[in-house]
C-alpha cells in the first residue's frame, strides 16, 4: 500500500514537473457536531490524487490537477464537493447521510426509504429495548409494534412466550401440539430461522433466540402484509421479523461498557396456616360438616396421626420454593469504522435467577462483525457470533410438569414432613444430582457485494448457523426406593445453512423523475436436525453421573411425550427459491411494487413441491400533489398504501410425502420388547398418519390498506393499517375410518381468516424548543379470528387438552379454540329455585341422572331440555381465549439529562379460564387434608339457604361431589383483559461538557422497574400468566417484578 502511494506520488511529482504548478492545501474534517473524523477520503476531483485524514481529522494534500474541486467522502456521510478557490486551509463539516440516518426500513434483501415503502412494516429501534432486564428480545417487543401480540406467560427465565403477528392461524386436532399458536419467520442478520424447526429437536426447552443479546440489536422490522412478506414467500404467511445487529459506526473507535444489576422480587405469599394450627383448623372445619361417625372413619391419617413423624411437619412450601433472585448483565463492545472497513466486537454476560429455587438462565455471547471494502466495487462483510445459554430447570423434569409440586393446583399441606433429600430434590439443587441444559450457538456469515456497474450490484451471502443443545441429567439412587439411579445425556444439533444471491439494479428511466429498482435473487436453504442420546437407570454407584455401566433393562427408550431418549435421529430438509421484486416510483409520489417468489421444498412430494407467491402494492404520497399545498403548513406527509398478495407457510414435518414405517413395533401393553418372537416387528406408522403425495403449501391471501401521516413538523405521526388475511389449505389431521388401519391423514383441509386493524400514534407533545420534552406513543391492534372451513362438511371439532382437562371447540365462523363448556348461571339459592320435569315431576339432574340437583349446586343450563345436564348436547361455547385487542402506551419525559419512560402494555377482550380456582375447589372437596390449609370460608361459595354465592357449595369429603368443579363449566370463565405498567425507566445522561472534562464520550445511569403494576378484572393472581389457550393453572411460573440499576459508559 505504502509502496503504491509512494509510486503514485513519485509519478505525480514527475508529471507536475512537466505540466502543472504545485500547490499544497491542508485542513480538518469534522462531523456536523464538530467531532474530528479520521480516515475520510479527500480527493482531487478528476484525478486519483487523494489522501485520508489523520486520527485527529487533519489532512494535507498536494494538488496536481486543474479541476479546482475537492471531493470529501466517508461512509455514513454525504459526499461533499468543495470548491477550492484560492484558499489553502479548509474546515469541512460533513453531513450525516440522510439515507444511513436510519429512516430506512428493511423489507427483505433490501432497505428502502420509509417514504417509498408501500408495505405494512412496524419498526422497533434497538435503542428502545436496550438495557431492559430480559433474557431475549422477543419478550421486549410486547406492546412495541402494532400488529404484534407478545404474551410472556411464564416468568421462568429463558423460556419462550407467545409471539404472534396479526392473529394466530395455528389450528390442530390435538391440544398437545408442540406450539399452540403460529409463529413468524425470524431473519436475524439475513439468516432465516424457523422457530418451529429450531424447537423440533430441542432438548433443553430454552427459547432459541435467547442466544441473541438484546443489546446487540440495531433495529427490528416486522413485515406484516403480503407485499413485505411475499419476498420470503413460503415462510411469510405468519409475518417476518427482521433483526439487524449493530455495526461499527464511522468515527473514532468507540468503547462502550454497560452493566445493570438488580433483584427479582419474591412472589407474594398466599396466606396459609401451618403445622399444628393447620391440623386444628382443618379438623374443626371438617367437624362442622361430618358427624362423629364419619369423622372417625373418614378423616385422613394425615390429620389424625399427629404422632407419625411423616405427618408432623410444618413445611412452608412457598418459602421452600420461592426466593429473591439476582439479575445481572454486562456488555462490552468496541467498534469503529473508516472508509475501508468497519468493525464491532462485543461480549455479554447475562445472569438471571428465577424466583423459583433451582431455576435461572445464564447467557454468554461473543460476537464480531466486520466489513471490508476491497476496492471501489467490491466489499465483504463478515459476522461471527458465539453464544451459550445455560438454563437451570429446577425440578421441571417431564414435559408439562410443574416446577413446583402442586396438588390440585395448590401447595401441599404443611403437615408433610420433608426429608432434607426431598427438599433438595424438589428445589433442584441436590448436590449429587444434575440437570445441565446448555445451548451453544454458532453463527457465521460472509457476504460479498460487487458493483458490476454503479447501477447494478451483485450480492451473495452465505451463512451457517449451528446450535448444539445438550441436556445431562443425573438423579442419584438415594432418591429412589430401590436405589436405582438414573442418568441421561442428550445432544441435539440444529444446523441451518443458507445462501442468498441477489442482483440489484437501480436506475432512473426516461429521466430523474422515474425511478426503477429491480431485485432478482435466489436462495438455497438447508435445515438439519440431529439427535443423539441415551438414558438409563442403574443400580451402580452414585458417583457415576453419566450413562455408563447401565443395566440394559432400565434403558429409557422414550420420554412421556414419545420423544426418543435412547437413540439417535437425523432429519434434513432443503429449499430452493427464486425471487424478484420491482419497485417503481414517479417522483416518489406514485409508488408501485411487485414481488414474486417461487419456492421448492423437499418437505413436499415431487409433484407438488413448488409454491408461487406473488404480491403487488401501491402507494401515493398525497402531500406531494400541488393541490395539497394549502395543508402543507400543518401536514408534512400523508401516504396511502395498499397491497395484495399471497404468502405461504412450511409444514413442520420434514418428510410428509413419505409413508414411513416404524420399527420395534413389537411393544405392547406392559412390554417394551420391539420384536415378535425375536424378529424386529415393522409396520407402517399407523398413528403418525398416512402420507399424501399431493400435499402442498399452506397459503395466506392478504389484503392490506393503510396510511402514514405526519403533522406539525413531525410532531405527530400516525400510521394505520387494516388487513384481511385468509389462510387456506392448512394442514390438518383428518381422522380416517378405522378400517384403513391408519388413524389419520395429514392433509390440506382447513381455512382460517384473520381480520384486523392497527394504529400507531406518536406525538411530541411539547414544542421542540422546550427544554422539557414529553413524547407519547400509543399503539393498538385489533384482530378477529375466524375459522372459514373445516373438514368433513364443516362439522364441529372438539379438541381436548389432556394436561388441563379443558375442551375446546372448532366451529366454522368462530374463533379458533373457543372453550366448550356447560353454561353456568350462578348457584341455586334454595330448593324452590330448582326446576323439575313437568312430565315426570322429577327434579333436574346432572350427570346422567346420577346427581339430583339441590340447593347450593351450580345452575347449569339445560340446553337440550331433557332435564339432565351433562352430555355433549348441553355444552356451548363458553369463551374465546383469543384477545380482541393488544397494544402498548408509552410516555417518555425528558428534561436536560433526565429521561423517564413509563411503559404500559395491555390486552383486551379475551376470556380466560380460572383453573386455579376450580382446582382449589376440587382440592377442598376431595383432598382437603393433603392441600395447604386455605380457609374455605374465604371463598364465595354457597353455605346456607338463600346465599347468593358465586360458587357451588364446598364441603370437605362431601358425598355430594359430582365432578362439578372440573374444567367444563363457565362458572370459572373470567374476563382476561389487563393493562400492566411493564417498565418504568429513569435515566440520567451526563452532559458533554462534563464528559469532556473527565475524558468520557458518554455516561448514563439508569434504573428500571419491570412489571410495576397490574390492572385486571380477573381474580387470578396474574391475568397474563395464562397458557396460550387462556387457562390459568396457577402451576405456571409467576411473572416476577424486577428492579435494576445500571450504568452505560462510552470511551
Amino acid at each position: 500500500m505504502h509502496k503504491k502511494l509512494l509510486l503514485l506520488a513519485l509519478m505525480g511529482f514527475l508529471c507536475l514537473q512537466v505540466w502543472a504548478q504545485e500547490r499544497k492545501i491542508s485542513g480538518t474534517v469534522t462531523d456536523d457536531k464538530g467531532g474530528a473524523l479520521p480516515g475520510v477520503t479527500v480527493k482531487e476531483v478528476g484525478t486519483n490524487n487523494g489522501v485520508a485524514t489523520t486520527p485527529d481529522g487533519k489532512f494535507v494534500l498536494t494538488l496536481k490537477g486543474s479541476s479546482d474541486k475537492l471531493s470529501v467522502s466517508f461512509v455514513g456521510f454525504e459526499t461533499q464537493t468543495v470548491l477550492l478557490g484560492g484558499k489553502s486551509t479548509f474546515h469541512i463539516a460533513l453531513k450525516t447521510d440522510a439515507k444511513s440516518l436510519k429512516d430506512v426500513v428493511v423489507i427483505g434483501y433490501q432497505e428502502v426509504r420509509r417514504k417509498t415503502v408501500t408495505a405494512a412494516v412496524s419498526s422497533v429501534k434497538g435503542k428502545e429495548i436496550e438495557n431492559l432486564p430480559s433474557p431475549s428480545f422477543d419478550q421486549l417487543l410486547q406492546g412495541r409494534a402494532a400488529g404484534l401480540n407478545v404474551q410472556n406467560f411464564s416468568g421462568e427465565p429463558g423460556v419462550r412466550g407467545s409471539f404472534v403477528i396479526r392473529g394466530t392461524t395455528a389450528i390442530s386436532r390435538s391440544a398437545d401440539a408442540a406450539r399452540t399458536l403460529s409463529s413468524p419467520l425470524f431473519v436475524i442478520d439475513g439468516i432465516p430461522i424457523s422457530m418451529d424447526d429450531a424447537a423440533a429437536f430441542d432438548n433443553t426447552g430454552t427459547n432459541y433466540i435467547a442466544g441473541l443479546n438484546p443489546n446487540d440489536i440495531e433495529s427490528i422490522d416486522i413485515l406484516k402484509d403480503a407485499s413485505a412478506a411475499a419476498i420470503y414467500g413460503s415462510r411469510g404467511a405468519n409475518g417476518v421479523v427482521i433483526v439487524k445487529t449493530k455495526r461499527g459506526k464511522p468515527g473514532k473507535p468507540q468503547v462502550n461498557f454497560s452493566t445493570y444489576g438488580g433483584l427479582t422480587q419474591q412472589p407474594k405469599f398466599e396466606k396459609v396456616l401451618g403445622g399444628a394450627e393447620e391440623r386444628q383448623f382443618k379438623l374443626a372445619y371438617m367437624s362442622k360438616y361430618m358427624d362423629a361417625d364419619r369423622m372417625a372413619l373418614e378423616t385422613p391419617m394425615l390429620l389424625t396421626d399427629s404422632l407419625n413423624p411423616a405427618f408432623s411437619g410444618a413445611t412452608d412450601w412457598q418459602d421452600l420454593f420461592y426466593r429473591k433472585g439476582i439479575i445481572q448483565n454486562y456488555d462490552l463492545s468496541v467498534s469503529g469504522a473508516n472508509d475501508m472497513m468497519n468493525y464491532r466486537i462485543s461480549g455479554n454476560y447475562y445472569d438471571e435467577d428465577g424466583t423459583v429455587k433451582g431455576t435461572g438462565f445464564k447467557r454468554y455471547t461473543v460476537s464480531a462483525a466486520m466489513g471490508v471494502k476491497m476496492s471501489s466495487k467490491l466489499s465483504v462483510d463478515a459476522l461471527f457470533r458465539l453464544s451459550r445459554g445455560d438454563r437451570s430447570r429446577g425440578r421441571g423434569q417431564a414435559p408439562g410438569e410443574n416446577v413446583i409440586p402442586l396438588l390440585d393446583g395448590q401447595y401441599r399441606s404443611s403437615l408433610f414432613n420433608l426429608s432434607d433429600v426431598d427438599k433438595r430434590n424438589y428445589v433442584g439443587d441436590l448436590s449429587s444430582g444434575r440437570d445441565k441444559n446448555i445451548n451453544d450457538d454458532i453463527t457465521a456469515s460472509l457476504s460479498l457485494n460487487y458493483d458490476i456497474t454503479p447501477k447494478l450490484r451483485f450480492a451473495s451471502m452465505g451463512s451457517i448457523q449451528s446450535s448444539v443443545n445438550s441436556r445431562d441429567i443425573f438423579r442419584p439412587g438415594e432418591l429412589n426406593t430401590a436405589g436405582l439411579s438414573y442418568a441421561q445425556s442428550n445432544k441435539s444439533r440444529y444446523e441451518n445453512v443458507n445462501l442468498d444471491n441477489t442482483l440489484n439494479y437501480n436506475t432512473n428511466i426516461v429521466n430523474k423523475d422515474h425511478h426503477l429498482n429491480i431485485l432478482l435473487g435466489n436462495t438455497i436453504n438447508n435445515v438439519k436436525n440431529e439427535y443423539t442420546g441415551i438414558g438409563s437407570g442403574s443400580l451402580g454407584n452414585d458417583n457415576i453421573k453419566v450413562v455408563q455401566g447401565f443395566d440394559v433393562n432400565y434403558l429409557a427408550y422414550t420420554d412421556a411425550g414419545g420423544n426418543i431418549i435412547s437413540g439417535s435421529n437425523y432429519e434434513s430438509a432443503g429449499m430452493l427459491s427464486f425471487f424478484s421484486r420491482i419497485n417503481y416510483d414517479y417522483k416518489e409520489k406514485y409508488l408501485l411494487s411487485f414481488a414474486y417468489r417461487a419456492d421448492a421444498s423437499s418437505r413436499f412430494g415431487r409433484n407438488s413441491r413448488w409454491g408461487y407467491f406473488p404480491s403487488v402494492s401501491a402507494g401515493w404520497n398525497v402531500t406531494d400533489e400541488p393541490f395539497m399545498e394549502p395543508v402543507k403548513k400543518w401536514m408534512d406527509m400523508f401516504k396511502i398504501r395498499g397491497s395484495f398478495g399471497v404468502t405461504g407457510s412450511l409444514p413442520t414435518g420434514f418428510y410428509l410425502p413419505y409413508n414411513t414405517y416404524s420399527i420395534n413395533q413389537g411393544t405392547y401393553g406392559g412390554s417394551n420388547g420391539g420384536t415378535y418372537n425375536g424378529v424386529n416387528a415393522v409396520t407402517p406408522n399407523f398413528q403418525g398418519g398416512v402420507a399424501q403425495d399431493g400435499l402442498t403449501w399452506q397459503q395466506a391471501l392478504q389484503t392490506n390498506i393503510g396510511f402514514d401521516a405526519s403533522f406539525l413538523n413531525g410532531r405527530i405521526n400516525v400510521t394505520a393499517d387494516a388487513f384481511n388475511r385468509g389462510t387456506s389449505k392448512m394442514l390438518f389431521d383428518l381422522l380416517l375410518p378405522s378400517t384403513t388401519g391408519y388413524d389419520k391423514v395429514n392433509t390440506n383441509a382447513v381455512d382460517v381468516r384473520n381480520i384486523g386493524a392497527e394504529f400507531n400514534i406518536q406525538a411530541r407533545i411539547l414544542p421542540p424548543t422546550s427544554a422539557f420534552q414529553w413524547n407519547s406513543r400509543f399503539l393498538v391492534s385489533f384482530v378477529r379470528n375466524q375459522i372459514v372451513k373445516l373438514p368433513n362438511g364443516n362439522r364441529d371439532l372438539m379438541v381436548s387438552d389432556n394436561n388441563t382437562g379443558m375442551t375446546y371447540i372448532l366451529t366454522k365462523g368462530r374463533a379458533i379454540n373457543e372453550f366448550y363448556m356447560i353454561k353456568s348461571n350462578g348457584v341455586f339459592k334454595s330448593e324452590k329455585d330448582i326446576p323439575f320435569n313437568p312430565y315426570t315431576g322429577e327434579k333436574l339432574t346432572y350427570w346422567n341422572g346420577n346427581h339430583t340437583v339441590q340447593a347450593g349446586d351450580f345452575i347449569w343450563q339445560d340446553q337440550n331440555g331433557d332435564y339432565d345436564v351433562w352430555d355433549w348436547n348441553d355444552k356451548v361455547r363458553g369463551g374465546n381465549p383469543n384477545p380482541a385487542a393488544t397494544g402498548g402506551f408509552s410516555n417518555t419525559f425528558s428534561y436536560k439529562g433526565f429521561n423517564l419512560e413509563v411503559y404500559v402494555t395491555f390486552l383486551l377482550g379475551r376470556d380466560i379460564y380460572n383453573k386455579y380456582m376450580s382446582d382449589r375447589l376440587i382440592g377442598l372437596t376431595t383432598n382437603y387434608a393433603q392441600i395447604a390449609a386455605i380457609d374455605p370460608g374465604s371463598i364465595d361459595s354457597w353455605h346456607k339457604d338463600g346465599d347468593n354465592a358465586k360458587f357451588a357449595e364446598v364441603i370437605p369429603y362431601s358425598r355430594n361431589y359430582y365432578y362439578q368443579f372440573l374444567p367444563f363449566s363457565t362458572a370459572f370463565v373470567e374476563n382476561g383483559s389487563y393493562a400492566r405498567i411493564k417498565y418504568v425507566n429513569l435515566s440520567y445522561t451526563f452532559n458533554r461538557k462534563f464528559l469532556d472534562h473527565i475524558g468520557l464520550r458518554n455516561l448514563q445511569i439508569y434504573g428500571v422497574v419491570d412489571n410495576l403494576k397490574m390492572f385486571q378484572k380477573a381474580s387470578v393472581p396474574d391475568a397474563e400468566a395464562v397458557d396460550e389457550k387462556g387457562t390459568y393453572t396457577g402451576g405456571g411460573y409467576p411473572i416476577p417484578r424486577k428492579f435494576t440499576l445500571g450504568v452505560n459508559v462510552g470511551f
Partner: protein
Amino acid sequence: MNCLKHIFVVLAAGLVLSPFTSCKKLLDQDPINSPYGSVFWTNQRDAEQGIAGNYALLRKALTSNTAYDQNMSHFAYGSLPAFEFTDYNQYDLGFLVRGGDGFNNADFLGSYLEGYHDWTPYYKVITQANLVLHHLPLIPDAKFTDQPTKTRNRLLGEAYFLRAFTYFYMARIWGDLPQVMTYDADPGHSTNLPRINEKIILDSCVKDLKSAISLLPMAYTNGSERAVRANKGAAFGLLAHVYMWKNFLNKGSVASDLTNAIAMVDSVVASGQYQLLPAENYPKIFHGKSNEGVFEINMQVGNGEQQVEKGFYYSTLKEPFIQTKTGKPDAPNLELIGNLYGDNTPDVRLQYFFSTLDADKPYNSVICKFAGPNRENIYYKNPATFTGAAVDANIIVMRYADLLLLRAEAYADQGNMGAALADINTVRARAHADLLTPDDIDDIKWEVMRERSRELYAEGQRWFDLVRTGLLTNADVAGGSFPQSRFDAGGWKWPVGRVLFLNNNVITQNPFWLGRVK
C-alpha cells in the same frame, strides 16, 4: 491486506458456486430415520419383519387396555364374562364379571369399557396382512436369501392365516363387520364401509384359510417358531373353529359345517406334529412352544417380550406365586370349579390349575396353571428384590387338547356319542381323570362343554364356547345366569364403539344395544 483479500474472494466464490451443483440433493431428501413405502418390501428381511409386525399387531390387539390398565383384552372378552370368576375387583373390568346397570354379568356398557367396543386395533392387523399379501409377490426371487418360492409361500400363508384369524376373532365379538380384503394404495381417500353379514365374513375366512393351508408347511424347520408362527396345523385348527362357529350361525342347518370341522381336526391329528403332553408338563404347555401348542401369541422372556407386572396372568396371581404381591382382583368361581372337577377326584388338573381354593376366601384362591403350581413360569427381572415380575407364558390361542374337544363337540352335535366320548377320554386320560362311559352321560353336548371348561379354564375360550353351544343361558352348565331373551336378541355380541360412528356414517349398531348405548 492483499492476502486477506484473496482469501475473502476465494471463500466468497466458493460460497456462491458450491450449492448449485447439488440442487437435486437439496430437494430430494429421503428420510434416513425410518423405512418408507418405496424402500420397504424389497427383500426377504423386509418380508420377515413385515410379517413379524403383523403378529405384533395381533398381540397388541389381544392385550389392549381399558382405563384401569392390565392389558388383557383377550381374557376380558373370552373369560371374564364366562362365569369363570365371581368377581374381578377392578372398576371397569368388574362389570364384565358381576354386571352392572341392568345386567347380572357381561355388562358390556360398564364404565370405561369403551375401549373394548372399538375394533380399530384389529383392522391394523388386517391392513398389515393386506400389505404383506400385496407386496410379497412383488419382491423378486433374487431378493430372497433362501428358497424364494417356499419362503414367500410360507409368509403369504401366514398373512392369510392372520387375516382369517382376525376377522374370525372380530366376528365372534361384534358379528357383522366392514370387510377390507385388498391393499389400499391411497388410504387417505378411502371411503366408509358398511358392515356385512357375519356369515359372509366367515366364508372369506374359510377361503383365506384354504389358501393358507395350500401355502404353509406342516412342519416347523425352526423349533423356536413352533406354534407362535402359523403353520398348516394352525390353519387346520382355526378352520375347524371357523366351521364350528358357522354351524352355530347356521343353527346346525348345514351338515357339512360339522363334517368339515371334524375333517380339519382329523388333518391336525394325522399330521403327527402334535401330542398331548404328560400331565406333569402342564406348565410347559402354558410356557409355550410345546408340542401341544397349535397357535400361540409369543410373550416369552427368552425374547424379551414378556409383560412386566402387567397382563391377565400377572394380575390374577399373588403371593407366594409372585413375591411381595399381596393382592389380586379376581375371585374364581369356586362353585363352578367344585361342580366341574368334583371332590376327591383323581383329576390332576385341580392341582395343576388351582391353588389354595377356599370358598371363604375367594380372593385368595389362585388360578395357577399359567404360573405353574411350583412357580415354574415365574420370572423376576431383579430376583433379589422380586421386582420386574412376569409370567413367562404365551397366550395359548389353540392347543391340541382344545382341538380334540372341539371335534368331540362336533361329534356330539352329530349325535355321535361314542366318537365324542373317545375324544373326551383322550383328554381325560392325560389328566388321570376317570374315563367316562355312556352311562355317565346325561347330555353329551353338556359333557363336552364341561370337559372344555375343565381343560381350558381361564384360557379365554369359555365365553365363545358358551355362546357357540348356546349353553350360555343354561345356568346348570354355564355356572351363572344369562337371560335367554338377551341371547336371542343378539345380546351376546358386543356393542360397536361410539368412536367408530364419529366418522363413519354407514355402519350400524348391533340391534340389542340400540337405545342402550348413550
